[in-house]
């Protein structure tokens, strides 16, 4: 499948800066092979045509195969000096990148997929939360999300009602804001940058900007990898593998409000990469 303009005109992550050796390495994005050349801290990226645009933001390498209308999204928390930036390692998942983002926005799976960590079967209820499309910045937000969590973060001592906010900044990039155990008045940022390799194959780059003086890096990475690999078994076994946008193909409830908004937004953008082809409109 060749990517359509809506997918081409986006910024995509290719990996953490530290993962690129000096000299040549190769990556794949939207079904296209890329040659990445690193000289010191300068990067050039080439596919078939002229060199692609390059950004190095938030410790990661970004590129585009089209002409995005906006720069790479802003992540103001990256400028707060007391936060720890933690790279959690790239993980390949045999699923549509859009399924990864949608799962990241989902609260209802916590008790079953992240049992006794992010949720417990005794308290599975998803309380009403708010969603909005911020047209000025073209972002989706879900706010006032609350969920009971037995072990919300690496440094948690016991259960708590966690408060969450979600921010979708582009079809394949999402952030989650969560109250840290150590600083209830601030937000930890957990980002998921997705590199769509093929429509049904993705590389996830989880990244954290957290307020935590207690946990070691290995503990923080271990916690995040544990959570993400718990999701992987679900992501790879959803059918169809590509995200269906056709109404009636799946069955959302009120807990899926953010997913409903996300799907509507993708439709509005006419994004098709990683989307199930409609079968009723031959």
């Amino acid at each position, binding site marked *: 499948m060749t990517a359509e303009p809506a997918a081409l005109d986006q910024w995509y992550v290719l990996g953490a800066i530290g993962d690129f050796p000096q000299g040549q390495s190769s990556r794949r994005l939207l079904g296209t092979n890329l040659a990445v050349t690193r000289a010191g801290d300068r990067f050039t990226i080439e596919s078939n045509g002229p060199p692609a645009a390059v950004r190095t933001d938030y410790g990661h390498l970004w590129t585009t195969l089209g002409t995005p209308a906006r720069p790479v999204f802003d992540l103001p928390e990256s400028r707060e000096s007391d936060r720890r930036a933690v790279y959690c390692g790239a993980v390949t998942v045999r699923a549509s990148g859009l399924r990864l983002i949608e799962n990241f926005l989902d609260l209802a799976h916590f008790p079953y997929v992240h049992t006794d960590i992010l949720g417990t079967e005794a308290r599975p209820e998803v309380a009403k939360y708010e969603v909005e499309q911020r047209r000025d910045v073209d972002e989706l937000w879900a706010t006032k999300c609350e969920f009971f969590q037995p072990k919300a973060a690496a440094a948690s001592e016991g259960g708590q009602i966690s408060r969450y906010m979600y921010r979708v900044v582009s079809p394949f990039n999402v952030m989650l804001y969560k109250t840290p155990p150590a600083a209830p008045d601030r937000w930890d940022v957990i980002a998921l940058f997705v590199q769509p390799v093929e429509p049904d194959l993705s590389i996830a780059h989880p990244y954290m900007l957290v307020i935590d003086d207690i946990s070691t890096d290995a503990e923080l990475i271990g916690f995040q990898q544990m959570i993400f690999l718990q999701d992987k078994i679900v992501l790879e076994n*959803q059918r169809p593998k590509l995200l269906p946008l056709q109404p009636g193909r799946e069955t959302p*409830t009120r807990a899926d409000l953010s997913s409903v908004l996300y799907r509507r937004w993708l439709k509005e953008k006419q994004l098709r990469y990683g989307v199930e082809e409609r079968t009723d409109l031959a």
Partner: protein
Amino acid sequence: MWVPIALGRDVPRGATRAVLLEGEELVVWRGEAGTVQVWEDRCPHRGMRLSFGFVRGDALNCLYHGWEYGAGASCRRIPAHPDLTVPPTIRAKAFAATETGGLILVDRDGTGGPPPLMLAGLPVASLAIAADPETLFQLVPATPRPDPQLVEATLDGVRFHLGWHVPGPGRIMLHALVLDPGAESRALIALHKLRSEAEARRAA
């Protein structure tokens, strides 16, 4: 058409089992009441394969968000909304299924008519073989039985009932039963030999 897809013994109460039938993913499961169910392996909510789910009492629960499906395939509980009465339109896709002669059979297209009744055999094993049915049955002198997709065959002196289904191109899954008590272990050795021959022929 009725097609054997598993041995009844391999799906005990409380268990799920994933079966691939001509490229289609099915879940076979059995609740506490003991009746076997064959459904499309897909949860209507967000498409998760139900074979990864868990059986509680007489219901199958999806692993992703815990939606609970009763024996009739309708969803009866959505944990995220404990007070919600689930509309009856939310249901998994169930196929006609039956268990007879030690085999579990499914009728996916609804053309099989009344469920068949078969002579009881003693279960040996289900065996996946990388060969198409034609290649395999060239190696086994078999007599068709009136039962759907079932033959009678003698291998190394053991009398078999062999049901089968095709998971996908170039593959067959045999469901083997024997007629003589005590012959099961010998039967399994004969089946392993048959599998090697069939796969060697395919490789050649």
